[in-house]
């Protein structure tokens, strides 16, 4: 594999991370969904590129699944959901933009710190892509806890999974990637299904969680 392959792989990885920042920055629900769709699209491209670069055809399958489900089907469904329920379009955030961005930068720095001691190896990408994927995972989680509405939280979850797939596809010769990505998808589907099914408008917690948490809180 040539230099170009590495550079392009890094480029796509970097783009996924950049989109994570975009996700964190967005204030409107539709924009969040669109940014997520874009991230999934870039991920699909990255997966396909890796499939080509590593000569691993099964990665194309991963790319196709990512593209079809995450970049197209789920965002479309979410858009219609938002429209139908007339959800509050503005995203409530528990953290301000600046603190969340700063935290995001901090997480990227942490990822690099953690991965840095991994010695540069003959194999491509280990350090850089791992750091990128780790950052995406951490930022997905940050999004989950910094956003108040359920839909954005689920998007944070899915963005986190994007980080996982990014890591999985960029590791050379990783077996079972397709199977794993399908399994991940089931998880995602379940999450989205949950949000749809339970009509969680605002946040996870709005179900009966306050209630649930209090059930045990006093004698009856």
């Amino acid at each position, binding site marked *: 594999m040539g230099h170009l392959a590495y550079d392009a792989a890094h480029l796509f990885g970097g783009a996924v991370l950049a989109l994570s920042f975009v996700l964190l920055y967005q204030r409107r629900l539709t924009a969040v969904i669109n940014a997520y769709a874009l991230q999934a699209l870039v991920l699909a491209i990255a997966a396909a590129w890796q499939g080509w670069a590593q000569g691993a055809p099964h990665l194309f399958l991963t790319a196709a699944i990512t593209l079809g489900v995450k970049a197209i089907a789920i965002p479309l469904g979410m858009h219609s959901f938002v429209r139908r329920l007339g959800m509050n379009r503005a995203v409530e955030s528990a953290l301000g933009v600046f603190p969340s961005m700063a935290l995001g930068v901090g997480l990227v720095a942490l990822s690099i710190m953690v991965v840095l001691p991994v010695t540069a190896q003959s194999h491509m990408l280990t350090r850089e892509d791992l750091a990128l994927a780790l950052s995406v995972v951490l930022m997905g989680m940050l999004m989950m806890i910094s956003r108040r509405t359920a839909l954005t939280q689920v998007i944070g979850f899915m963005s*986190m999974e994007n980080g996982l797939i990014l890591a999985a596809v960029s590791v050379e010769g990783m*077996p079972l990637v397709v199977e*794993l990505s399908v399994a991940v998808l089931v998880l995602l589907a*379940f999450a989205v299904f*949950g949000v749809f099914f339970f009509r969680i408008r605002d946040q996870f917690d709005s*179900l009966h969680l306050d*209630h649930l948490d209090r059930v045990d809180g006093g004698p009856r």
Partner: protein
Amino acid sequence: MIAGLVALVPLLAAVVLGFVRDRAIGAWIVIAASTAAFGLACALPWQMGAGTLLLVDPLSVHMAILTSFVGMTTAWFSRRYIEIEMITGRLDGLRARQYHVLFQAFLGFMLLALLSNNLGLTWGAMEAATIAAVLVVGLPRTDLAISAAWKMFVLCGVGIALALFGTIVLYLAAQPSLGPGLPAMSWSALAVAAPGFKAPLLNLAFVFLLIGYGTKAALAPLHAWMPDAHAEGPTPVSAVLSGSILNVALAVLLRVRGLMASNPDAISPGIPLMALGLLSLLLAAFALWRRYDVKRFFAFSSVEQSGLAAFAFGIGGPAAMFAGMLHVTLHTLIKAAIFQCVGRASQLKGGQKFADIGGLIASHRALGLTLAAGIVAVAGMPPFGLFSSEFLIMLATIRSWPWLALPVGLGLVVGGWAMFNRLISLCLGAATPNRGPAPALIDLVPAWLHLALAVVLGMAMPAGLVAWFSLVAEGLR
């Protein structure tokens, strides 16, 4: 290939149950399948070996036997329990069927996760088991049950996602030594090659696997899903959840711990495990004092005991490993017995609050005494086995980390005292009114069996079993 069958039988049963409408037949299929799984698992010690997908080593065999045993007795227990739930209208026919299907699927996937020789397969099976468990917990369809299921799903989902990242990094660490492909994802190959792995990657993988599977093992502060799931789901599930899902996650953590421990450059896995274990022990011990719901109470007790076991595994060394394994085994047995009794008691009293259940000995002597015995057992009192395992754990603590005996002791005291507090309120005093059917004596047989085993294992373990436990502990080095 028996190993495959062990996991396959419940899974197949789950599929079959999906098409069986007759409730009676369904219940018997469940019993037959789980009994068969247990029987097959018992044959595993003579089938040791590592395949591409399945790994039959002492740890997996031990956990598989334990899990399938609890699955079996819970299946016996479930038959009458579900019947009563249907009579009282808390479950309808469809949900009863769903329950049986999901229960078997859950069991099958957990056994698969235990017996798998592949990081990815383990992870996938865990994920599937989680989803099955989430569905079962939400089965009563009450608002609270759905909320609890959702909480469990979100937390365990994130946990499982983190575990996947850890799995990928672990593969990455193994790849240079074992080359690309399946061997680098095989537990047995990893265990051999781990000393040569790059330590930084191993460390990173460990952190993610610890947090990921630690969530499933309900280690504090990752345990929040567990009490709610226990409290709101059907009781038989609590019996299994409390023991097996914790055990399966602990088993995976143990394997990871083994990899870390064998690598000279990696951080010591013991200290994080001990830290989380100790935190769980203390947090749960204190939380036990503010409980008003019986099942939540015992769920916290599971967090406490699971934490103690994790702590023991963190100490390391053959003695602590032996003690930890004994503790896990005994706790699983005892807690399943307790939940079976609690299930009967809440059916009898028509509620699962402490305010509903009181004076059990007065209203149903056998049930009350069995529950009391279970609580005494879980409080670590003789003649039940947890006494022995806690003794050994304390001893191991003092040998390696004398000062940590203080917090561990504090946790044991606070937790044990809380147990007795509730023993008195549940079983003694004047009886609260009965609002449901009383269990027959035969319904208590599984619980008795568990408690009897807990006595024998702790106080008079046959030499063969001692050798077996030592073998398991040896394998965990």
